[in-house]
């Protein structure tokens, strides 16, 4: 995976892309979920993605709403990824260069062991396809869709030195 030069101005130093949810700023509008779903759809068209596509695309993050507290939750891409260590098939792996945790959808069998292992509850089930659905940090974009879409800058994007 490559980062665009816009995302990494100096180009040279490898960086780990991370997103942090800011509960003080989140209004619970759910636009991040909408844009995440569309980004992970085949048509990338909001109407078609929600109404026509089968299997229906899923958002890879969820917004928790509890009274007046809102929190967008997605995969943390943990340095010590318990999901990867628990994966029965080898579908989950952590890229040693980028630090990102990815799922090989051809290898996932939907056993859900990673769901029990994830301390953030950040892995979802795609029941139509029988595999997990999790944040992939939008490999085709310089800025993940949820970050770009948030009207209140409640999802912070940073690149940390490896």
């Amino acid at each position, binding site marked *: 995976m490559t980062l665009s030069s816009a995302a990494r101005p100096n180009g040279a130093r490898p960086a780990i892309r991370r997103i942090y949810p800011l509960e*003080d700023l989140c209004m619970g509008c759910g636009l991040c979920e909408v844009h995440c779903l569309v980004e992970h759809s085949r048509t990338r068209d909001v109407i078609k993605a929600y109404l026509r596509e089968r299997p229906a695309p899923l958002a890879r993050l969820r917004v928790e709403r509890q009274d007046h507290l809102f929190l967008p939750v997605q995969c943390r891409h943990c340095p010590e990824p318990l999901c990867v260590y628990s994966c029965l098939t080898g579908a989950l792996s952590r890229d040693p260069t980028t630090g990102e945790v990815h799922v090989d959808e051809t290898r996932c069998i939907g056993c*859900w062991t990673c769901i029990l292992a994830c301390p953030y509850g950040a892995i979802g089930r795609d029941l139509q396809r029988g595999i997990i659905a999790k944040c992939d940090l939008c490999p085709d974009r310089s800025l993940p869709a949820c970050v770009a879409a948030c009207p209140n800058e409640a999802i912070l994007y940073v690149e940390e030195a490896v």
Partner: protein
Amino acid sequence: MPRKTSRRHTRYLIVGNSAGGIGAVEAIRQVDADGTTTIVSDEPYPAYSRPEISEYLAGLTTVERMLFRPPDFYEKNRIEAILGVAATRLDLRKRRLEFEDGRTVTWEKLLLATGGRPTAPRIPGAAREGIFTFTTLADADRIRAALRPDSRAVVIGAGLIGLSLTHALVRLGVPVAMVELLDRPLASALDQQAAAVVERALREAGVELVFGQTVAQVLGRPEDDRRVGGVRLQDGRQLPCEILAIAIGVTPRTELAAEAGLRVSRGIVVDRHMATTHANVYACGDAAEAFDFVHGVERVTPIWPNAYMGGRVAGLNMAGRETAYSGGTGMNALTYFGLAIVSAGLQEPSDGPGFEVLTCSDGDSTYRKVVLRDGRVAGLTFVGDIERSGIVFGLMRDGTDVSTFKEALVAPDFGLTMLPEGWRRERLAPLATEAA
């Protein structure tokens, strides 16, 4: 087999090419890019996903698709793999492993990740042809080769292995009867209510269930007494079958370790660094007794994730990065017969002081239960809606005092927003706090 006099020396020697062994070599390579590493197994394939043998037997996947790591894994990580040859003797003094074909490998650091073998009860008449176990690809191949269009099966044991085999057989259209000594399926992994959900799914799939019974005798066929034709239960009932599978659990493979003089209890005894009683020798996985953070003792928890994580800790220590194993416990996710059930830790706690059980049920489809011990999570069962179960398991693993928000743990809308704010500040946004 022809005798070979090949002698090899390696810095790291891993006996066992499954979850624990792979966990170890990946950890070793994270710390030591060059140290010579050798992994050996009596199985002839690259590491494969053992839990997938159910899908494999059902004809829904292939060996290629079951590989636990990409085909170039060994080459890319410069790991010498000696596969399909059994190790026969361990000489701790000479730091040498001997193989059945005469070759030897000497090591500087050794890991025993030898796994388990199916527990084999003594049953009269069991010398007949048509009796199987189900823990390896070769087992699945043998069962597949023995199946005929009119085959019927009896599976002894309604645990995880018995269930995975039954699921495969049902999908192949084979009539199955399960015989279980206890009063319900998966008694070691599930409480009564979740087990009842499994029982119902099994019955709906057409599986005949016999509880509180065991097989007293294996019977032959009228036309050929050397081949399995059925079983007689303790109560005298007879069940006809051509395929008899024994799935009552696995026993740690400790022979190499015990004969070499390592301390072995039920499994190979290891400390919190996964080190055995002998310097530079480590053990992990189904063969070892590693720390269980729920029971607070060393015990065998033969499940894949614990094998990988124990192997990882062993590998880090072998390569010189001192790391303590934080412990594992029994934990399982079950998807057989279309179910979604996860469980971990204590399922049916005693009524002793300090225990508290919280449950929330929504008809038959969803059920959540959390077992508390002194204000901390000691067990969980989620049926149906399982997606936040990992948060509860995380609190259990961390030993977090959940007294102030315990009711939320089983709430339908449970999530991170119900945890104390400090937890989220610490775990979710360390840098964001600075940036704000």
